[in-house]
């Protein structure tokens, strides 16, 4: 796999507050997210994993350092460009599903395309809806759907635009294990079968084990990587990180 990285961080620093109250959520992180792969970002609470995702996804701006999506330096983009990038090049899946309650499942799925004024490829939409087993649920409002169904709608919304990269923030955090497995397996298929790039932020070793590689963060810095993770190796690596904290 010689494709250039899908996303890249170079000396990323994110500081909240100032003076004595300053918190360094990210303290100089440099890393690469490989394309056409499923990457998990892990670390204990407060390690900066969510902040890292926010910066790589153009949801927030760095205090210093650079975040790249492909070749685009996100720090150099204005609000309008970032909005377009999020809309056209990135897909999002959130922990709390984050569907708009006033829209139906179908309307939620089509929303980014509508915002972009893009035509939806009907064949792709149909196969996606079929893959995610949502065909019967398209007319329902989010409140009429189960958690797993809502997250599959969010997944369809993220994948419909064939984004360069899908960011998922604790996508299984609010799901039972069966629904969680389903969502992770679908993310995995989107990489294996559709050639997409997925980044999942999670603290669940089982969720991380679906990934091709794991990036471990601690205290706002990159603390290690794992390739071909299994739940037990992830757990061991996390234990080592915590141990390092204790020491």
């Amino acid at each position, binding site marked *: 796999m010689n494709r250039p990285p899908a996303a890249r961080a170079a000396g990323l620093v994110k500081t909240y507050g100032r003076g004595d109250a300053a918190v360094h959520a990210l303290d100089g992180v440099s890393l690469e997210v490989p394309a056409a792969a499923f990457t998990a970002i892990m670390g204990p609470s407060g390690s900066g994993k*969510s902040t890292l995702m*926010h910066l790589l996804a153009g*949801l*927030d701006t760095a205090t210093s350092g650079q975040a790249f999506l492909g070749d685009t330096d996100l720090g150099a983009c204005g*609000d*309008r460009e970032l*909005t*377009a990038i*999020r*809309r*056209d090049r990135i897909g*999002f899946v*959130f*922990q*709390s599903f*984050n569907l*708009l*309650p*006033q*829209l139906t499942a179908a*309307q939620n799925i089509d*929303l*980014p395309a*509508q*915002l*972009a*004024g893009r035509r939806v490829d009907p064949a792709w939409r149909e196969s996606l809806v079929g893959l995610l087993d949502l065909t019967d649920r398209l007319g329902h409002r989010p409140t009429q759907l189960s958690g797993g169904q809502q997250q599959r709608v969010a997944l369809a*919304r993220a994948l419909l635009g064939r984004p360069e990269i899908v960011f998922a*923030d604790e996508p299984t955090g609010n799901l039972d294990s069966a629904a969680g497995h389903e969502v992770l397996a679908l993310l995995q298929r989107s990489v294996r079968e559709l050639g997409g790039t997925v980044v999942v932020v999670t603290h669940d070793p089982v969720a991380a084990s679906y990934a091709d590689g794991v990036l471990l963060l601690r205290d706002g810095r990159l603390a290690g990587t794992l390739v071909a993770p299994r739940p037990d190796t992830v757990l061991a690596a996390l234990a080592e990180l915590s141990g390092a904290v204790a020491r």
Partner: protein
Amino acid sequence: MKASGVLLAETRRRPGRVLLTGLAIIVATVFAAGTLLFTDTLDAYVATQTVQTPATAAVVVTPPDGAGRLLSTVGSVDGAATAVGVWSTYRPVNSGVTWSITSDPMTGPLSRLTALVTGRLPVAAGEMAVATGTAERLRLAPGSSVEVSPDSGPARRFTITGVVRVPSESLNTAFGTPGAVEGLGGRLDQIDVVAAPGVSPEALTGRVSAAVGPDVRVRTGDQQRAAEAEDASASIAAVLVGIGVFAGLALVAAAVVVASTFRIVLTQRRTQLALLRCVGATRGQITRAVLAEGAVTGLVAGLAGIGAALGIGYAVLAAMRAAGVDDVPTLVATPPKLAAALLVAVLTTVLAAIGPALAASRIPPVAALGTAGAGEAGAPRAGRRLVVAGVLAVLAAGIGALALAVGAAPGLIGLAASGMVAFAALVVAGPVLVRALAATVGRVVVVLGRTPGRLAVANAREVPRRTAATISVLALGVGLTSALLVAMASTRAGATASLDREFPADIVVAGAGAAAVAPVLEGDLRLVVRVEKGQVLVDPAPGTTEDATRAAVTDAVAGRSGMLVRYAADARAQLESTIDTVALVGLGLVGMTALVAVVGVGVTLALSVAERTRETGLLRAVGLTRSGVRAMVAWEAALSGAGAALVGAVLGGVYGLIGVQVLGLDGLVVPVGTLLALVAGVVLVAVLAAVAPAARAGRVPPIRALVDA
């Protein structure tokens, strides 16, 4: 701490929200308190303007027949130092317009002319002073002369010796010596008497009364002055009652807005309220806590409103003084009345909070454990709402029909009652009607607004009760305005039609002497003259200007008497100016309700935006631009505005037409253009009210999608 203590602690933590919740009450209170200040100030001012009897008059005699014979009787009563008769008459001057001519002693304690502007007061029978306005209009100055036609006999020439300032001057006004006015055929209106030293007004009144006999009204000066002041109050009382009705309407509108905002704020605090229930608060405690918060909100908003009204009052009067308006009254603030206004503000707010308080008490404790469900709990019970609304609508129609049958003033009151019942029906049916609105106007918004428009319609449908409250209040404001516009247009049309009947020509010369002048006018080639029913009707010949026509008629009638010359253009201009004034005052009053409604739109949107922060963040995260977010909020406002404007214009138009019928006025006119402009204006104003909430929504960063609210 009691439940109310916990909620009030929250109120103290976020005082801005109290002001936001109470904003509608603030506006309504400003209006109510402003009405009180205006009433009291106007009352005091009019009293000083209309009390004519000088403070020096101890006793006032009103001769029943206007004859002068009592004057000497009163003057010779023991203890009467001076007695002066006040004569008045209305006479044509220079064969034209009628003047009001009143007598004055010109010297001594009983003279009413205390403000001489130029020249000197008359002393001889052939002299007169004129009021400032009259002097200005007719370019009269000391040394000018006028001819006054008496009851009978030839016109008499008077020399103007001075110009005086008088409190009110509706006609051309002049003052002569008592002898001169009596000589013109004047009537003795009253006799002012000054008491000799040591004689009390009461004692003198008794003696005068004994001298003139039981059929003549004799009052002390104080009684007379009080009666004059009361007359003035009565003349403005009707106006003030009208203003009071509109202040009440503004309060009703404010109550609906406040009820809606309370509901929203409490929905946002659902988890907090449920937590209180979890830890043991009873339903009653929750209800009382919310009502207590309502009382505090009403108190704060009421105080703010009264303070603002006082500030505006002083500022306006100061500005008038600075602008050089003379005779600016002082602001009269009556503390007990203002306290009553404050009480009304508090009561209105507490009443408005009852519904939301009961709803809050029904939040189950388990809600504390779930996610805070934003939006409205429970779908509107469409069936029951429609039934209640239908009953109310039938009731409104019934009262309206009754009002139409009764007619006149009681009918108008009935019509107002019918309107309020119709408003209640609108409020009840509102949440159901929102669906219909989304399906009609919403389609247009979706087409015009594209994705932000579609989101706006979805947002409005998501909270039908809230959208309905906003719309119904705005519809009330629009309805009042439309009714007024229809009534004004119909009145104008009716009055113009009757004016056209009264004036078959541009100039009408009537009276006993009219026939004599007809041949003179007919000889003038510049004029087209007809004689009908003893009236000489004069129109300009083609090519003759209005000024030339007037000059020709003035020349022809000069030196003749027994004629009344009336100009259609003058009557029309006077009518227009009267109607315009009434329309302006009416729209100002109605505007207060509209202002409350617009505040309602702004506050509701502000709260909705605050509630939807997370959703807005999500929209930003998936690619809605900042301007797209702002457009979404603006479109929601436009949707509400359009719905309210349409409902209000139709209902208001119908009520306006019925009102014209009830009053038995001629002319039924629906000013379609004006109403369309009103609809467009309301949509525009609603969008303007959305500016601040839209800006705030636009600032929501996309990252808020991921942060738990």
